[in-house]
């Protein structure tokens, strides 16, 4: 990784080191990136929020592994159970069973003073299902889709982009033309057709979306490879007798990690909006399974009478997408080679303080906020 150290970077050799560069002398690339990322308070906070949401979603109502996901009557009791290996959670309600309506209209039982969650903190729908459990299950499925699509499309995009950029010629032509064909059809439209064909299963939908969402990544990686393959360290590796495979994966790929990580994160934030939109249209995850978009679609007519059915799933979509976007922004700042300084004033807290500072009498715009 020594060729990635900004100090050893060929541009800075022979130049006087600036103050900013001196701050990073002797640090490994990983350390610099980590420090820069940790300095981005919005991103760090987002990581914690996201981890919290993932834990909440999966531990609260438990989950189901394998099986068809269909509802079947239990052999022992009269209750409906879900097909597949059920991992129970700590929340008492399930997302498919109906309960007696506690408050009139199924209003949320959550009260701030005296503080209590009650049986159905997010309320109940018109059939008595617990909205909290439904939202949690929906969040599970949405998060599953996000991560699966993120992994699949990153792998495909990186491999195809690397091949196209490294070999150029007809391989490049072939891969790029395929990319063009996919990229010209809006992702949502293509996803809708695929989602409709394979029918409402979350896992299958995620795999299908992963197979079409890699185009942006492939283009970026290809561009990086086209430029990196002309660099001296690649020539050196080739002269030393390294195989193409080794050059691609051991020499060039580590240098594109920044681009890949950032664009994978931004892709994932796009995917959650894509999946929820598809489910909203009815071409993504469908009943009896649940996704955040599907909950909104199911209840959007009831906005006037039961607004809580609409607010909660939407709020969680926004929070998840916002967190992923902030993390992506933090990663971009951390991996940006032009940014030599360790950012110290980009955090949300400072932003809010600066916002008020700029209105203190006598302060000029940029006074309390410039980069010192």
């Amino acid at each position, binding site marked *: 990784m020594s060729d990635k150290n900004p100090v050893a970077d060929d541009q800075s050799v022979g130049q006087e080191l600036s103050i900013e560069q001196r701050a990073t002398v002797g640090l490994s690339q990983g350390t610099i990136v980590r420090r820069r990322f940790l300095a981005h308070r919005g991103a760090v906070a987002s990581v914690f929020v996201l981890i919290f949401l993932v834990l909440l979603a999966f531990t609260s109502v438990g989950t189901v592994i394998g099986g068809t996901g269909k509802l079947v009557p239990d052999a022992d009791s009269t209750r409906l159970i879900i097909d597949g290996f059920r991992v129970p959670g700590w929340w008492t309600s399930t997302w498919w069973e109906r309960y007696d309506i506690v408050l009139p209209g199924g209003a949320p039982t959550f009260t701030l003073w005296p503080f209590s969650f009650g049986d159905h903190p997010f309320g109940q729908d018109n059939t008595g299902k617990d909205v909290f459990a439904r939202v949690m299950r929906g969040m599970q499925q949405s998060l599953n889709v996000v991560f699966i699509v993120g992994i699949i499309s990153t792998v495909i995009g990186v491999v195809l982009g690397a091949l196209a950029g490294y070999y150029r010629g007809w391989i490049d032509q072939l891969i790029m033309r395929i990319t063009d064909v996919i*990229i*010209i*059809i*809006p*992702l*949502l*439209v293509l996803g*809708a*057709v695929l989602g*409709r064909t394979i029918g409402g299963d979350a896992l299958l939908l995620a795999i299908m979306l992963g197979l079409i969402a890699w185009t942006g990544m492939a283009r970026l990686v290809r561009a990086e490879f086209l430029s990196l393959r002309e660099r001296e360290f690649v020539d050196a590796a080739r002269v030393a007798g390294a195989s193409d495979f080794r050059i691609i994966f051991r020499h060039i790929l580590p240098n594109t990690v920044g681009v890949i990580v950032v664009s994978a994160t931004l892709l994932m*934030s796009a995917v959650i*909006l894509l999946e*929820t*939109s598809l489910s*909203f*249209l*009815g*071409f993504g995850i469908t009943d009896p399974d649940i996704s955040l*978009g599907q909950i*909104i*679609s199911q209840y*959007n007519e009831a*906005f*006037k009478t039961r607004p809580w059915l*609409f607010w909660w799933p*939407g709020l969680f*979509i*926004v929070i998840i*997408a*916002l967190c992923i*976007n*902030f993390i992506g*922004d933090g990663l971009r700042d951390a991996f940006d080679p032009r940014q030599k300084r360790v950012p110290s004033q980009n955090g*949300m807290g400072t*932003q*809010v303080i*600066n*916002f*008020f*500072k*700029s*209105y203190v*009498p*006598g*302060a*000029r*715009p*940029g006074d309390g*906020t*410039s980069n010192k």
Partner: protein
Amino acid sequence: MRYFSWLGGVGACFIGRCDLGISVARGEQPVIDAIGGALGSTLQLVLAATILAIVIGVAIGMTTALRQYSGYDYVVTFLTFVFYSLPIFWVAVLLKEFGAIRFNEFLGDPVIPWWSILAIALVMGFIASSVVGGELRTRVISFSSVAVGIGGLIFLLDVTRWFVQPSIGIIGVALLTFATAAIVVFTSTGFQHRRALIAVGIVVALTLGLWYPFQFLFFYLNSAWTVLLVTVLMGAIGVIVGLLVGGDGKAVVARTAGIVGGLTVIPLVLDQMFLRWDEYVARIPLSNGVIATIGASTPAIRRVDDTWLNMLDSMTHMLLPTIALMIISLAAYTRYARASLLDVMNQDYVRTARAKGLGERTVVMRHAFRNAMIPIATIIALDFGAVIGGAVITERVFAWQAMGSLFNEGLNRTDVNLVMGFFLVTGILAVLFNVFADLLYSALDPRIRVS
């Protein structure tokens, strides 16, 4: 095999006999007819949203870049993140509830409480003072003048019951024309340029003088072409006045006056539309409010042969879907405009321009703006997919009978011909958008030539 016969039908388009098959889902209606009926609405929606997003996004992005690290900049940056993360269907449903249903209820008894007038005035004042920037004194002046102006305007509209009986009239036309002229002069020549001020002043005076004759023109030439005619006419008048008054800087003055002249058509047409307000309210179904939530037009109004009434009708129908669609693109344009202008402002040629002693306005508008717009042209093509996807969702929420609903219907009923027709049209549109972006490229950057 079916695909090739379909392809043959598409190929026949080149000799004028299109055949995209028939749609089973729509009662054996030929797909080409279905698309023909739907394409117009979608194009209107997509174009309006894209253009608005570009104009507003670039304006916000540029002002934040010029006031980098100000409170305004931070607030906008945070908001763009939020907008990026908003699911469009959620926004559309919210808009439908608050923008239409609640707003229509408000129009039933339009009294704006004093605190919301105060809040709007303070926010506008804050934005204005942040954009103007400068010393504390200038900031206080801009803050208070804009806050008082906006607050006063809303208060005035409120007490005169304008929201019940919206009209523009000659006073509104005068106000809007002055505002447009001020913005154009400020961005194009600056207020120091006396000849430009005189030329634009003459154009504005002419517009107001011609307001009464135009009433007859709009009444007798009741078609959409009149809009184009008036635009060209007023633009030409502007150019001629500019050439006559321009003196040394003929070209610049003529251009400024021409743009102002062309833009005066907007208040004039708005005026015509609002003249028909009572008729519009009388014709819409009783259950609907004035801001429509269903469909692209009112069928009862469609049958009336009055362009201005139809325009008003389309406007009230398009308002919310356009806003919903605009919001998803807005964040991208804002961020790219900001980043790109920041990038350009650090270039050497901008420093050279400053060192020559040029004013800040000239440096920004003449030297930086044009170069900063080059990356924006790329986004137009890239953003297309998102906008079409957004249109599918928006049309669903607002129950439009357009391309999106065609696609929904085709998929739901497994009607291959309909879906293929949709793909064909979006494919063609995507190519057109890309061509447009390329042309824009070559217009912005003389180094790039389209051969």
